[in-house]
């Protein structure tokens, strides 16, 4: 067991982009958001990612525009640094080392040379106390500067960024923590604290959730746990402060933001409705409903033309002030749990898993971008806490990618269980899945496992249920149902001694079906439904089952709850080998014989990669991640990785992705691969004064080529006579979709020019 230094665990895409509030640049062209330990720069018009600002080594927790130079941005991170970036070029300008974990960052126009950060209080022993400090940024040159000039402003603040806000003209800062609102006046250097009761007779829950200050009025808006919004005025006195209350949200207000002119107050919460309150007009308000998921943060562009909401489902919505949605930036949706397995769509090579509630998401791992969402439940989602929602619990895709099976489940109480098994057919013309069959209550109990047979001619689906049966479903043409075409129906119901089936698995060619019943593995022939053979390795129930592939297809592997990994030979019907490993997950590679087994060992997870034919691992790595691995999947590579040595051979045709306990998507990468990536990224010439749009691609390139051709024409007097088809302008013209072409009058000139044979050439 040699731990190879060549292979390392790498975090791969799909990190949260809704962790902190996104910011929009002054010209409203770019949107910046933190994503893990990087800052992503998106174009607000095309949703394309323009740059990734990489440099932090821990989670980015704050992001603010530099008030003195609007092309620069400050970011802070838990690694104790504040970095200044030029986001148009993607260049790190400066790093200020603070030396403490930074939880939030604020910039005030009226405090030049100073940023405000929230740090944990050093003095007190408990780590739960935080303070807001002013950090003076030293003006020394050099890329890395130590910044130790710290001045405490407010103590006992909340580490949540949206609970602190700078008021009109930077005169005061308001911060809410728990039930207390603190306002600090810089000029008077005085703090006023206002407290609310935890709850009153009417059952109000007054805990503060967020704070926003009016940009040019002495007014602070606070959001509360019970959905109330309070507008505080006259807070420069201890006693005579006043507040007015507005109430529309039925649960906590998650985000509040004033527009730059202060005419509107934007609020959002679990209801996923953006509420626009007119400032100073009582409770007059507008709504932008059905934004898809709970609103976490709201931000507004400095010119007030764009609103931006970031949502719980890792999504950022950019809308114009006319309330038309202009862009949606969607990351990998990760809930608290992921109930479906990780799947790979054979057509798009996309990762398929639970997405938005009631949806399946197709996420392209290569481009780190969500392709689309498939609505499985097809019901209006009611955004209300504590409601039992219909969840997609199982999904399976057949080997050709033409059928998708999903199970959705809704359980209000133990007696009332709602299960719907749905089968979706891939439609070539619309390039998406369409509902073919919907079977309600396919099993009396929950469906515990589901798999498609690999047989290309007759696709079969097998489901196992907690009711003690496994069912086989076949696609059948019903002649009676006029004009409906083929639909799925039950072909066989099997059971084994009234035990509960837990796992099922088809062999690669679909000729054998293995179903695990408690501690017994039964092997069936799907053509005749005969029970061929049973295997059992008591004690310990079967946890996972899978058949070997390619040259190892005569082996069946199973793991039990009593730390046993068994390999049965199907030809001799005997146990080939077994090993005492507490395997929690067994994942076969569809392109090779390799199997990946994740095993639990004292708080972390180990990985073994082996071939079923020999009980010796090809590769093993201890402590792949802390905690257990939830799901894993082998995704085929675009092209076979060259230059792999023995220990990395298993990574040559496919990549192993896995999801950790903290819902982080990880993968394994080899050193040579990383080198390649770095090399290729250097080659990319970054020309980014203009956002990359189809127009830019067409005209920008053309201009460049024109310039080049001019140069070449002037230098080489004996230029070749180009055929019209060969000229770059014509090629561009022919290869660009018509709807993105500029107007014909513009192109005409170019076209005619390209046809002309230049004088110098003739001579």
């Amino acid at each position: 067991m040699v731990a190879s230094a060549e292979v390392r665990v790498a975090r791969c895409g799909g990190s949260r982009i809704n962790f902190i509030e996104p910011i929009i640049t002054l010209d409203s062209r770019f949107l910046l958001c933190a994503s893990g330990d990087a800052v992503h720069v998106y174009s607000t018009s095309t949703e394309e990612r323009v740059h990734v600002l990489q440099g932090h080594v821990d989670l980015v927790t704050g992001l603010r525009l530099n008030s003195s130079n609007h092309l620069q941005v400050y970011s802070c991170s838990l690694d104790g640094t504040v970095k200044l970036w030029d986001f148009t070029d993607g260049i790190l300008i400066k790093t200020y080392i603070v030396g403490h974990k930074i939880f939030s960052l604020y910039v005030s126009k009226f405090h030049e040379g100073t940023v405000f950060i929230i740090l944990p209080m050093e003095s007190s022993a408990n780590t739960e106390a935080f303070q807001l400090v002013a950090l003076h940024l030293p003006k020394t040159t050099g890329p890395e500067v130590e910044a130790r000039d710290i001045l405490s402003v407010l103590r006992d603040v909340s580490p949540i960024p949206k609970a602190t806000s700078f008021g009109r003209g930077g005169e005061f800062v308001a911060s809410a923590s728990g039930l207390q609102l603190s306002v600090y006046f810089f000029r008077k250097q005085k703090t006023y604290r206002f407290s609310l009761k935890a709850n009153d007779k009417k059952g109000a829950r007054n805990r503060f959730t967020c704070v926003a200050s009016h940009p040019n009025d002495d007014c602070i808006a606070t959001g509360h746990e019970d959905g109330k919004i309070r507008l505080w005025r006259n807070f420069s006195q201890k006693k005579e402060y006043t507040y007015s209350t507005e109430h529309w949200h039925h649960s906590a207000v998650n985000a509040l933001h004033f527009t730059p002119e202060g005419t509107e107050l934007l609020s959002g919460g679990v209801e996923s409705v953006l509420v626009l309150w007119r400032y100073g007009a009582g409770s007059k308000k507008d709504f932008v409903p059905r934004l898809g998921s709970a609103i976490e943060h709201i931000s507004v562009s400095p010119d007030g033309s764009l609103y931006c909401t970031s949502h719980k489902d890792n999504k950022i919505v950019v809308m114009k002030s006319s309330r038309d949605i202009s862009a949606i930036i969607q990351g990998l949706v990760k809930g608290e749990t992921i109930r479906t397995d990780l799947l790979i769509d054979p057509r798009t090579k996309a990762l398929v898993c639970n997405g938005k509630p009631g949806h399946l998401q197709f996420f392209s791992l290569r481009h780190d971008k969500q392709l689309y969402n498939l609505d499985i439940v097809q019901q209006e989602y009611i955004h209300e806490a504590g409601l039992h929602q219909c969840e997609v619990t199982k999904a399976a895709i057949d080997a050709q990618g033409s059928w998708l099976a999903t199970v959705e489940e809704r359980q209000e109480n133990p007696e009332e269980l709602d299960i719907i098994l749905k089968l979706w057919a891939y439609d070539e013309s619309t390039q998406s899945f369409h509902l073919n069959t919907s079977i309600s209550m396919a099993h009396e109990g929950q469906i515990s496992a589901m798999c498609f047979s690999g047989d290309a001619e007759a696709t079969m689906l097998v489901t196992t249920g907690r009711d003690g049966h496994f069912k086989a479903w076949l696609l059948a043409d019903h002649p009676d149902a006029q004009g409906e075409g083929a639909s799925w129906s039950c072909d066989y119901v099997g059971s084994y001694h009234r035990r509960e089936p837990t796992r099922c698995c088809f062999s690669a060619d679909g000729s054998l079906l293995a179903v695990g019943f408690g501690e017994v593995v039964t092997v069936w022939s799907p053509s005749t439904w005969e029970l061929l053979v049973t295997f059992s390795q008591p004690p310990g129930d079967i946890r996972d089952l899978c058949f070997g592939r390619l040259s190892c297809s005569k082996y069946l592997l199973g793991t039990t709850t009593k730390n046993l990994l068994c390999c049965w030979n199907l030809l001799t019907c005997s146990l080939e080998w077994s090993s005492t490993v507490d395997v929690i997950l067994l994942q076969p590679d569809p392109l090779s014989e390799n199997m990946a087994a994740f095993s639990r060992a004292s708080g972390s997870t180990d990985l073994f990669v082996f071939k079923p034919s020999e009980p010796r691992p090809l590769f093993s790595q201890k402590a792949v991640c802390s905690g257990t691995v939830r799901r894993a999947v082998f995704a085929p590579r675009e092209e076979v990785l060259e230059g792999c040595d023995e220990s990395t051979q298993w990574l040559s045709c496919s990549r192993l992705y896995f999801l950790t306990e903290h819902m982080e998507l990880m993968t394994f990468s080899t050193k040579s691969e990383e080198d390649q990536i770095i090399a290729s990224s250097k080659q990319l010439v970054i020309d980014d004064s203009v956002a990359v749009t189809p127009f830019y691609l067409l005209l920008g390139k053309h201009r460049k080529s024109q310039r080049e051709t001019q140069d070449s024409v002037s230098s080489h007097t004996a230029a070749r006579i180009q055929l019209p088809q060969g000229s770059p302008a014509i090629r561009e013209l022919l290869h660009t979709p018509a709807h993105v072409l500029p107007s014909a009058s513009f192109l005409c000139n170019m076209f005619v020019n390209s046809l002309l044979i230049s004088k110098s050439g003739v001579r």
Partner: protein
Amino acid sequence: MASYKATRIPSFPRLGEKVTQDTLYWRNYKTPVQIKEFGAVTKIDFSPLSPHNYAVTASTRIHIYGPYSQEPVKSFTRFKDTAYSGTFRSDGQLLVAGSEEALIRLFDVSGRVALREYTGHSKAVHFTDFSADRFHILSGSDDYTCRLWDIPSSAEVSRYSEHTDYVRCGTPSRLNPDVFITGSYDHTVKVFDSRKERSVMTMDHGQPVESVLLFPSEGLLVSAGGRYVKVWDMLKGGQVLVSLKNHHKTVTCLCMSSTGQRLLSGSLDRHVKVYSTTTYKVVHNFDYAASILSIALAPNDDSIIAGMTNGVLSVKHKKHPEDRKMVGGTSRHRPAYRVFVKGKNYMPKQDDFLVRKREKAHLKQYDKELKRFQVSKALDSVLKPHVRLKTPEVTVAVIQELNRRGTLKNALAGRDEKGLSILLSFLIRNVVDSRFAPILLTVAEMVLDIYMKVVGQSAVVDKQILKLQELVEKEIDYQQELMEVLGMMDTLFATMTAKKEAAALQSRAANGLVEVRGGQDQMVKAT
């Protein structure tokens, strides 16, 4: 901002018999006209002449009815005992009938008194008919003989006494005047040729033969007796072609549709089955109130007439499309076609800039209310009579949606007597429907919880609650019985030793499980 997703109305697989072309055709008859006769109706015969009157033989009378009259246009009452087999001649002028008195009488359809009487049989004559040449009468009698009579001279031409039991039915060949077929209680069907002394063909039906029928081509013969209907191939020398056993009591009568493509059989089990003559499968089934003794189809299948043991004659006329028009009265004047296409048939020119109107999604009333979170109003809108009576699945789907949103209780509460009574009547109508039962039971529980305090204040509501309780109790008993039946069936299946068979049955049972409740429903019907 995603658009609002409308409530999904689940479509349930249609249970019971499938609607085929045949079902549609045979359903296209009006509700039957019932005419009471004096005794069991033993024979119905249509006149071949338009307007196709029909003769009904019942008790001691033969009535002749017009095609749409409910009163007889003529009746022959000169029988001293039960009359049998009143049959028209092919020209529609003469009618012959046998009787219990062992006499055969010949009537002029326009006259009243019998033209001739043929004596010679010693026992009741159950079968009489004319030969194809119109000059002879065939008869079959309980004295085991069948005879051929000359009409003008009332003389017996020939006599066959080959049958060893009562001769109760027969049919002449329409193509050959000399050939006729008789069926007897001695289980045989015999083919006679009047030019020969003896029968030319004998077929063993296996049961007392109640009725025989020749196909229009006369290549095939149908015989009915016992529970069987058998089809014989005459050209192969009387081989049985197919044996049908679809009735569970004696089949008494047979009849052919005008095109010869459908065969009808009536039985004492009160059913009339319609068979396709190409596949010999039952394609339709009629139910009647009493055991059927005779059945006839009018030319062109314009009406189906069945005579029953209790003396009731059931006449079903075909629906005609023009009938409906008459009922509808004068049609309302509608706007002309061009009103609807106004401005919509303009073809955009090549350079026109097309501005499309945004497609507006039309939501149903209940969806509009649900979108606004007006739960009570949404429920009200689906409890309107035309929704809850015609499409209860919509009502149930909305209730399910409310339940999913956790606001069902709010929607149900706060109803007055009228609203509550509508709700309860909907429950009573649908609570035992297997498709809706799970959610409607929840609704019933909630309604009882909410309105427990007002019980006793309204007589209407109290009555409905009691009715609901009764219904639920009855259903529980029902289900219990069903489970017992299932248990019995399980033991039966368990006794089947053959492994293959058991497997097949299991898989069939499994198919049933997909629509488990549906299966139970069907079983309820079966039991």
